[in-house]
């Protein structure tokens, strides 16, 4: 009887011993991190819709490394580094998630699907009702997206990488994914992971920032809701198609994002019930599920281990922090312009993490004054934040590649 090596039976464990020690340690850390993400997601401490599939993917892929040949190790999940068409055709018949990665992830389609879902759930009328406050706050809330770029360059990242990590300040996961896929394909996995991890922390972190920067007296300011104008569906549709066309003409590279978002808005306003239920149900949740799962699976130690990861972690949190501060500065500007009638907490909603920052803003205001309602103004700022983030993504994707 031939000798049966225990290694050939349990290859997941054997590959830990066979490979580089640092990679083996990273795999164990990532398995534990994946389990922690599932736990934190299930407990609703982190965003469960993303964190549960992501944690599952992360833990499993790092446990499931095997010997593909006598000398090479890998997984049969997905290989993000393949670009040769012949190899790609071959690997698509082996790695079970490769078709989804190739046809929806690496070309940004999944980001567009999610953006379409956001569009369907968006009430653009609040932007049209309060255009000045919404846009001013949203522009201020891009402080992190703008300032992180030169800081990242100063810390040694290339222009493309710096722009990609700076987009974390836009607080929009699909936008970060899209920008990094366009500009920094080698780093898109760690950048997107950093973005989604931090975005799910905003619900816990931003309330402290609000309490630090806005005194309780100002947090409790009651805003006048009777002055909010009505906007008809026809006006919203006309605004959507004109804005989408103008922005696509200005930033053709980001046109898929613009089209997805404004198409979602138009479908909602046109009252196309079958499309609405399809986009906000199966399309949005299906895309979110596979986005989380693929992000987790892409966290295989060999893929994610990058000497720049620490810099990305620092810059990601810096970018979100600056954007939060910028948003509150915008809120204060509106407070002074309106002579004290505008609640500065609305500013945090300019950070376009829909609907997290919106909920955070209303929650903090309610704690200070249970009769104060800011939601209509906060929705306007939130949606303007999405639009300004998309514009900044367009500017970065268009201009950064031509910088020397």
């Amino acid at each position, binding site marked *: 009887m031939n000798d049966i090596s225990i290694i050939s039976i349990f290859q997941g464990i054997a590959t830990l011993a066979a490979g580089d020690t640092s990679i083996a340690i990273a795999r164990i850390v990532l398995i534990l991190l994946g389990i922690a993400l599932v736990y934190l997601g299930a407990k609703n401490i982190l965003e469960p819709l993303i964190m549960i599939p992501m944690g599952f993917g992360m833990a499993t892929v790092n446990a499931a490394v095997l010997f593909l040949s006598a000398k090479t190790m890998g997984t049969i999940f997905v290989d993000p580094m393949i670009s040769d068409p012949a190899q790609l055709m071959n690997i698509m018949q082996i790695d079970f998630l490769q078709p989804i990665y190739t046809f929806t992830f690496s070309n940004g389609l999944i980001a567009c699907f999610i953006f379409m879902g956001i569009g369907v759930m968006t009430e653009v009328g609040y932007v049209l*009702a309060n255009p000045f406050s919404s846009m001013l706050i949203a522009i201020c809330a891009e402080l992190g997206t703008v300032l992180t770029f030169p800081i990242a360059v100063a810390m040694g990242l290339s222009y493309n990488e710096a722009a990609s990590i700076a987009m974390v300040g836009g607080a929009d996961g699909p936008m970060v994914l899209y920008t990094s896929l366009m500009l920094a394909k080698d780093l898109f996995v760690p950048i997107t992971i950093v973005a989604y991890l931090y975005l799910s922390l905003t619900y816990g972190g931003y309330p402290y920032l609000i309490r630090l920067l806005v005194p309780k007296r100002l947090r409790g300011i009651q805003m006048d809701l009777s002055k909010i104008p009505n906007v008809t569906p026809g006006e919203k549709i006309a605004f959507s198609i004109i804005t989408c066309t103008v922005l696509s003409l*200005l930033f053709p590279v980001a046109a898929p994002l613009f089209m997805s978002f404004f198409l979602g808005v138009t479908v909602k306003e046109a009252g196309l019930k079958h499309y609405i239920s399809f986009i906000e149900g199966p399309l949005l949740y299906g895309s979110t599920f596979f986005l989380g799962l693929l992000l987790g699976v892409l966290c295989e130690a060999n893929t994610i281990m990058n000497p720049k990861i620490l810099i990305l972690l620092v810059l990601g949190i810096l970018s979100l922090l600056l954007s939060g501060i910028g948003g509150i500065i915008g809120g204060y500007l509106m407070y002074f312009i309106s002579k004290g009638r505008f609640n500065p907490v609305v500013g945090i909603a300019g950070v376009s993490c829909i609907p997290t920052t919106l909920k955070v803003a209303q929650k903090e205001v309610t704690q200070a004054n249970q009769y104060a309602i800011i939601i209509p103004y906060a929705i306007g700022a939130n949606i303007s934040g999405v639009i300004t983030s998309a514009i900044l993504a367009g500017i970065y994707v268009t201009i950064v590649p031509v910088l020397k």
Partner: protein
Amino acid sequence: MIKKRIIYWVAGTSLAFGGVLVVRVMSQPLSGSSKLYALIAGYTISILGLFLITLGTRRKG
């Protein structure tokens, strides 16, 4: 009132597409700093045009 709103919509749309014209057509033959200024002006005009459209939707609820 309706006439005033239509003016906002027409002026805003014209301004927005005028900005596009500056960015995509008029700035193309330029080079160096004049191209940069033309691009900045074009982008600003377009965004201002979109902002002007939003003013056309303002009325009391």
